[in-house]
């Protein structure tokens, strides 16, 4: 004989709803985490490099290139300067030249006469230094491409995608709260008669609300943990698929081993990812608070 003071909270749909919502929120959180990892990698591993191209028809090409190399080497903030050899330039241009090839000429790579090749110099420099104005003054014919422009554009793209993921997460949590409230309200409705009887006997409203809220929280927790279990294989598959992008090349997992170690997963996901394990607690808290509110508001209507 249990020590009963309040009706039990019975709902079959609440655990199921929490499981689905956990899967949705988990996927949004995983996407958010992946974007944050990608942004971190780009910020850490991509150096600030300027690519300077001197056109092949420039008079005194070699002298101008030499002067430019000297200028770059003397400029403070320039970390490393490299002039491409004609072989390196051929290799660099190969993808573009391949597009123009016709069928039946697949055995040898296309060659451009060295006199028609542009002269390419790359210069790694500190983030605060902008080489474009300096080079424009010194060699007006040179074309300068800063890869930091791409980093900025990618950063903007990631920021946009991050906002989308955060919005999805917020909508998922909002929908969870709302649908949980509806499900809980329906479950409480089935106990209205019992609640009225207990109220008429002088039951303390908080006792009634607390006991039912604890039942609801437990059901939500069970459902949400089940949702996490459902989500685990999907996340592992996604992690394997994205590992070459997200893990640095020095990591053994980047080559795609059959199973990752916990260490691999730790480096694969940003710290925010681990909040995914807080989802069951969040679902439980939402169910607890919603049940409390629904019951207390309803009991306030009684005399």
């Amino acid at each position, binding site marked *: *004989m*249990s*020590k*009963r*003071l309040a*009706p*039990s909270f019975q709902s079959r749909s609440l655990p199921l709803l929490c499981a689905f919502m956990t899967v949705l929120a988990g996927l949004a959180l995983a996407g958010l985490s992946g974007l944050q990892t990608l942004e971190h990698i780009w910020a850490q591993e991509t150096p600030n490099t300027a690519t300077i191209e001197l056109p092949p028809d420039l008079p005194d090409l070699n002298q101008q290139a030499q002067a430019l190399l000297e200028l770059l080497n003397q400029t403070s903030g320039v970390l490393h300067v490299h002039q491409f050899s004609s072989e390196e330039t051929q290799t660099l241009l190969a993808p573009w030249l391949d597009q123009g090839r016709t069928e039946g000429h697949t055995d040898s790579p296309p060659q451009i006469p060295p006199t028609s090749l542009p002269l390419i110099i790359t210069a790694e420099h500190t983030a605060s230094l902008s080489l474009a104005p300096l080079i424009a003054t010194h060699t007006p014919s040179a074309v300068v491409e800063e890869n930091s422009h791409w980093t900025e554009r990618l950063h903007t793209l990631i920021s946009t995608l991050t906002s989308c993921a955060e919005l999805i997460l917020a909508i998922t949590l909002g929908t969870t709260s709302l649908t949980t409230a509806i499900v809980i309200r329906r479950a409480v409705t089935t106990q209205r008669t*019992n609640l009225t*009887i*207990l109220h*008429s*006997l*002088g*039951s*303390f409203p908080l006792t009634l609300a607390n006991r039912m809220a604890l039942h609801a929280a437990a059901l939500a927790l069970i459902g949400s943990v089940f949702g996490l279990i459902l989500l685990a294989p999907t996340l592992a598959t996604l992690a394997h698929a994205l590992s070459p992008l997200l893990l640095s090349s020095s990591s053994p997992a980047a080559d795609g081993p059959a199973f990752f170690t916990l260490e691999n997963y730790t480096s694969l996901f940003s710290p925010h990812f681990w909040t995914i394990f807080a989802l069951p607690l969040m679902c439980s808290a939402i169910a607890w608070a919603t049940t409390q509110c629904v019951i207390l508001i309803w009991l306030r209507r009684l*005399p």
Partner: protein
Amino acid sequence: MIHLNNVTLSRQGTRGFALRDLNFSLPRSSFSWLVGPSGAGKSSLLELLSLNTLPSHGHMTLLETRIDNASRSTLRHLRRRIGFIPQNYRLIPEWSVFDNTALPLRLHKHREADIRREVHAILHWLGLPQHIDAFPPQLSGGEQQRVAIARALIGRPALLIADEPTHALGEDQAHLLLDAMQQLVSLGTTVIVATHSRTLMRSYPAPTLTLNNGSLMHQEGTL
């Protein structure tokens, strides 16, 4: 003990009145019958006295407490001192007979061992010891009524209100219940019983409140 002064109870959702301008007083340690034809307002008055509804107008004093300006907390404490045997029993179907009966004692935070002893004693007295673990839907109407009686009596209420408490009981059990109510009166409880049974009223002569069309027609006998 109980004092009603121009108490009116509106019908929910209509302009009509369930009770109109009721004025009467009942002293502590008294037994009263409440009579009247069907629809006279007996159940409404009992719902009012058990604090399941509150007066629309007028002043009501129960157990030395003014109801019209009482806080929710005061009303809750008063409800715990009132035993109510409703006509439709109002048992919680998912709870066992034991849990239904033990509820008032649990609300008073009695020790579980004491609760067990008292529940067994009262259910034995009402002839229900074999049904202690049964659930209300498994019981007959008379048995459910006895569980409702057990729940109302177990907390030794200061005010006991009963709506047709004997209609599903046999003659012997009805007399057993009325005798128990008389004992409670001698211990200080105020008892009001709504009935249609003239036989019972003759067997247990007591002051009578007669209602008709929501109004008190007359109050007879010494209170």
